[in-house]
């Protein structure tokens, strides 16, 4: 990644930034919580939404625009403002 890309990434405060590892997920730049349930957690990052799907999901903590999620994570989805969906 070039310097320009890195700077853009760092200053993309309205874009989703996720770190998923094992049974823990860290979601940054959270502006709004849209849905919290056992199987799905959806948050709004400002320009896009991200959705974490799984079972026994629990938000361990919310602070400083960061959410830490625990549970059995199966998939992550991103929703754009225009309605297009990317799944990873």
């Amino acid at each position, binding site marked *: 990644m070039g310097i320009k890309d890195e700077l853009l990434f760092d200053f993309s405060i309205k874009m989703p930034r996720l770190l998923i590892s094992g049974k823990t997920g860290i979601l940054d730049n959270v502006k709004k*919580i849209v*849905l919290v349930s056992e199987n799905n957690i959806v948050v709004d990052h400002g320009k896009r939404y991200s959705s974490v799907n799984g079972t026994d999901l*629990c938000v361990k903590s919310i*602070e*400083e625009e960061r959410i830490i999620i625990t549970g059995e994570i199966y998939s992550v989805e991103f929703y754009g403002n225009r309605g297009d969906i990317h799944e990873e």
Partner: protein
Amino acid sequence: MKNRGSFLEHSIIIKIEGFDRQKLLTECVKRGIIIKDIRSVSEIETIITLMKWDYEQFLRLAKNKYKITVLKESGYRPFIRKTFFKKSTIIGLLLFALILFYQGTFVSEIRISGYRSYSEAEIRDNLREAGLYEGCSKNVDLENVKLHIYKELDNIAWIGVRYMGNLAEVTIAEGTITPKLVDKSKPCHVIAKKEGYVENTIAREGRIAAEPGTYVKQGDVLISGIIPIASTAYGTPASGMTERYVHAYGEVYAKVPYRLFCYQEKYNYIKSPTGNHIFGIRFELGGLKINTVKSFYKYSNSAYTEKEILNIIRPIPLTLGLAKVEEVEVSKKEKSNEELKKEANRLARNIISEKVPENAQILNKSLSFSSGENIIGVNIMLETLEEIGEKKEINNWKHN
């Protein structure tokens, strides 16, 4: 990040009931309220954990749109508050402190050191008589205890008593009363340490001064350390010498007579229960002693029996016993000759073990009785064979 303590300090678990709970959580994120463990229980219920300091602000945000229920408070602050602000806890703590303090006022253990000739049991018994025993109050006068020990036990050079917490440490130093030994290089006599009839003398060095059959008194010379000589060193200064001095030693056995006297009861006293009795409780807590039987005692002749139920020293000295006082009628019956002899022999054995040295051989023993009004005197005549010699240095002797 605001520094408002931590979840460990004081946190609350609350249940939020209502619709659009996400909006409330979003508001909390915006206001910097830290939330933990968000768990969706049902379509309309969510359980969250937040710090106590944020609760007021959280309620303001929630307004009346949601039903908020505090499920649990956790953290060390509420724990301390719950623990120390309960009446029962305070009473318990006070009681505990009181027991600790009370326990500290008693002697729970006595450690004795430094004794040699006395047994620990003997010293313990004497200490108990003086008032120092396991379970007694620490207020006991130690000077009196020391005086009692000095008085009761011979040859105590020093006694120290000190408290180490509940432990009383008694240190004893016994004096040494070993007979003064005569230096082997110095001349000495063997003298009689007690009176008796000389039976046999084995003089290994020195001259026999008391022949067998001689009655000697204490201090009489038995083996002399002065040997007469007939000097043949004519014309020299040594020709004037008529005796030489030696370190006399040997064994002198003598028959020693003993006349011992003791008394015994003329009658056997028989206690027959009348059937009247009273029960009571003996209770001792440290220095507090209560015996209910003594309060209701009304018989002129009685027998006291007790069954100990509890006797502990730790954490506090406590004794509990069931006492019974039984009225008895006392009748007396004159002892038979056999009983008298048996008792006299028992008394004689006791008195002999006290008065006669261990290594003495008893040659003759006779018992005679003299009757009094209520008592019978037992006259014990003994003849023993024992070694009576002891060394004594010769003073004012001249060098050979």
